[in-house]
């Protein structure tokens, strides 16, 4: 809305060949794309080789929202705190329905495209998924296979004992009893 001239459009191609047309300002939320656009490889379609169409849709949704937020906050003088809160709520809602496989792809995509905000949202989501879980629960959730041999696992289990050997503090306490 701030620009009176017609909006420049950018075309992005996902790994499975779908082409998306977005406004330049939206694409520029991704630092990787911003750098590319500033180096002026304008007309061509930008291939985003490691991101599938459904994921790219979600990424573009995020970028659109960021553009909307920054344009609305510059026109109305909202107190910072409120927008911060709204942003948080929006982020939570945005990540709500995301399952673990989508989350993984989103993390890779936001890392590749260098979108810090989205990357942080993904990291926080994953941290909250891991919190309070046992190893097997984590494996089930993310479909990770336990590739340790029993011997290797045993080795990990035994490698920490050194720190607890001859603890002088404990000795003193138990002998004083």
């Amino acid at each position, binding site marked *: 809305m701030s620009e009176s001239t017609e909006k420049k459009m950018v075309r992005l191609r996902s790994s499975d060949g779908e082409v998306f047309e977005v406004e330049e300002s939206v694409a520029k939320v991704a630092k990787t794309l911003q750098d590319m656009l500033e180096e002026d490889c304008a007309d061509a379609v930008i291939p985003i080789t490691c991101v599938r169409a459904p994921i790219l849709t979600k990424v573009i949704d995020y970028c659109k929202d960021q553009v909307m937020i920054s344009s609305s906050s510059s026109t109305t003088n909202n107190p910072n705190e409120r927008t911060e809160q709204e942003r948080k709520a929006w982020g939570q809602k945005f990540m709500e329905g995301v399952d673990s496989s989508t989350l993984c792809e989103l993390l890779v995509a936001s890392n590749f495209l260098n979108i810090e905000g989205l990357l942080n949202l993904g*990291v926080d989501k994953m941290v909250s998924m891991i919190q309070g879980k046992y190893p097997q629960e984590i494996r089930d959730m993310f479909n990770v296979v336990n590739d340790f041999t029993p011997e290797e696992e045993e080795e990990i289990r035994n490698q920490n004992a050194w720190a607890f050997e001859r603890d002088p503090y404990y000795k003193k306490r138990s002998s004083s009893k």
Partner: protein
Amino acid sequence: MASAGGKRNRPWEESYSVNDDDDDARDIIETKWKNLMPELLQMIFEKVGLEERILSLPFVCKSWHKVLGSPQCWKSLNFQQLSRFHRRDRPNFIVRFTRTYHLNRPFSFSGLLKLLASLGGSAVQELVFSKADEIAADALAYTAKMCPGLKTLALPLLEDDDKRLPIIISKWKDLECFHMADIPWRFVKVLEQLGASCNTLVEFKAEAKISYREATAIIHFFPEIRRLCFYDSCFFKEHLLKLHQGCEELLLLDFKSVGKRNDRSNYSLSHSLWRSIRMVVQLPHRGTPYRNNKC
């Protein structure tokens, strides 16, 4: 050509769900997680609570275990994130640790500290204990040697008032936030030693009775301190004024008390004076780790 948004209705949800029993899909998902970059995993592990980082993550798979070998994953060591009580079917941290690591010796927080200090090394920036954790001076000295890069330190109640305490603490030259659960006997000595080596301190909190003499010592050795929080302490009005005037950079002087003793009326401070102190006070304040497990 398809335009993003518009009539496309959440395609990511229908096209790719984990609940698919399709073997192919499972294979793809599996390799995806395996191929998640170590940098990304590290970024995630850094933020996971200490308990899961010690007991769960290393056993998930080889690649996760390998990532945990990086000191960066151990930047924050917050002992308050360890569960102290049994919760339904879940035993507490000490029981789980002893079982998981086949510990045939008694568990001690000092031992755990040594272990974590050796894992994190100079990458450790935050070391926060729970108030009642028993930490031996030896383990603290070892930590000071291994992790000199500490920025936040919250000490537990220290049982034996060790002679070495001032020297140990003075090893942390980049300290920014220093919290104490009690005031040790050699407190002024601790401040003197720390003041000589560290000039980055901006926050001091004590969750114990602190005398006016000790409070002035803080200001003397750290005139540039910004946030002072004394819980459970009482000062005379004149003393409070002097403290306030003593350090120019002061942004927060906090007396939130456990009891009601520090009510404004009990200080017999005039309303305007109280307001002037509280006014200097407004700066985003991260909360004390002793009360807030969230930080």
